[in-house]
């Protein structure tokens, strides 16, 4: 049963990532001005050079053909060459990925630490003022655009990971607080509290089994949020990660680069969500 579920998720991931790549390639191909290249306007180039530049883009005219050839090359480890940066896409991604992974990973860690600390303390204390304060903080952060938080992080010299954490914190906090509040109001947990069981024992024995799978699903979704947050943070803070690369590729209509980043982002997001779903299923099975 579990194997079938994993296989189904695997197939869905591959199909969605391939479709995502095709969609982004189609969008770029259909975009106005796709065939124009600033280099073609260079007065130093003669007609043969301009013709050569046009020829270089000619094999990208048929989007399906281009996408099929790209997939074939990708099977052999060749992800193509970036049109705007003139470097192999694989090398660019290898250079930029570690920074983004570090930023996103640290951001998620910081955000979830803050979310759990605030949501748990709100559930334990059950103090109206404390809960209101936490809700106001997260609500205010929710109302500030991600790009403004990124700008403020530059202004206050705050690390990029903390900016990502501040962007995803309010989204996670809202759901986590509600999940924990709902779990703590269940009759058997109210009874356990009334009987004087310790808070940690109640948390690990009674609350986590109830809220765990949903929290895991939320953790999966927060990976997608963190990747989205990495774009403005990297673009505005001048951090050379995949988010900044995606930004540059989008502005330059760099088809090979944009297509590969789209597939990569789709894969990471789907893997995180499917991983959370599979672990959640196992968890539910064990606690059923």
């Amino acid at each position, binding site marked *: 049963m579990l194997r079938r579920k994993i296989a189904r998720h695997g197939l869905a991931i591959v199909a969605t990532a391939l479709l995502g790549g095709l969609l982004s390639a189609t969008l*770029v191909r259909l975009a106005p001005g796709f065939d124009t290249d600033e280099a073609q306007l260079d007065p130093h180039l003669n007609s043969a050079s301009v013709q050569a530049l046009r020829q270089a883009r000619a094999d990208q005219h048929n989007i399906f053909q281009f996408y099929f050839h790209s997939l074939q090359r990708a099977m052999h480890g060749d992800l193509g060459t970036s049109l705007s940066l003139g470097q192999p896409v694989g090398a660019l991604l290898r250079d930029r990925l570690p920074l983004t992974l570090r930023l996103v990973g640290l951001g998620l860690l910081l955000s979830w630490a803050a979310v759990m600390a605030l949501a748990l303390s709100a559930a334990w204390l059950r103090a109206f003022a404390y809960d209101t304060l936490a809700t106001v903080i997260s609500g205010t952060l929710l109302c500030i*655009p991600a790009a403004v938080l990124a700008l403020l992080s530059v202004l206050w010299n705050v690390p990029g990971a903390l900016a990502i954490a501040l962007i995803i914190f309010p989204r996670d906090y809202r759901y986590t607080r509600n999940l924990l509040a709902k779990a703590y109001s269940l009759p058997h947990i109210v009874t356990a509290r009334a009987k004087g069981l310790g808070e940690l024992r109640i948390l690990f024995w009674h609350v986590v089994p109830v809220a765990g799978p949903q929290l895991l699903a939320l953790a999966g979704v927060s990976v997608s949020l963190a990747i989205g947050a990495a774009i403005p943070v990297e673009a*505005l803070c001048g951090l050379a990660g995949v988010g900044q690369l995606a930004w540059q590729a*989008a502005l330059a209509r760099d088809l090979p680069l*944009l297509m590969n980043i789209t597939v990569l982002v789709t894969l990471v997001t789907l893997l995180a969500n499917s991983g959370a779903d599979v672990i959640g299923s196992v968890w539910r099975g064990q606690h059923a």
Partner: protein
Amino acid sequence: MIFWRRVACVVLLVVVGVSLAANWLAPAGYAKQYREAADAPPSHAHWLGTDEIGRDRFARVLYGTRISLLLAPGAALLSTLMAALIGGLAGYLGGAWARAAMAVTDLFLSLPWLFLLITVRAMMPLNVSPLVSVLVTFTMLGLLGWTSAARVLCATAGSLRDADFVRQARASGIRGARLFWIHVVPNLKPVLYAQFWISIPAFILSEANLGILGLGVAEPLPSWGSLLKELEGLVSVGEEPWKFVPLILLVVVVTSFQLVLSKPDEVAA
């Protein structure tokens, strides 16, 4: 609880009203340049100072608020209609239609929202007239923002497909589009209303993000996004605090929307 919701409603009404009165409150307009007073601090003549090319910031805030607040509901309406059409129809038809529609929805949802926005926005021409840039930005928000609502609507319409009253209508000879519009769509209205109102603050924030990243409304038209781009040049927060007015206004408006839309128990918390 009710008090705060009322306050939020009043705040929204005041902000919308003041932005609609921009022509009277700032008759010189958002593009007029006071070259002798470029980058000036607040004064009697310019309540919020001027920007680096001498345009009155107060006028730009008023006109920018009008653009963001009037077009975000337009984009929300478009996304709601698309969600109703795609999600509602897919759920109503069921089977392969529903699976195909949900596969497309999953594909959109698997990409982070901001990534999808900057990718699609960059596909469109960037050097366009300000008016076209406004339409492009908000139409794009509307065309891409339907996915999560479509999922909910698909599930709701799917549950209605086999409801007793729909079966009865079908048995009495009502079929196809008529059945969908007369019996299914009215029952999707609560979800559609909720989706419409939830989308407005989300689209306001998205436009602000795009504007700061340089992909939003083109100059000289102001919007909250382009006004917030000014923060990029700040060296410290205390230096020119009046530049934070658009941000404060945006936070107040989005907070008001959240308060109006939140469930009573959430407001109490």
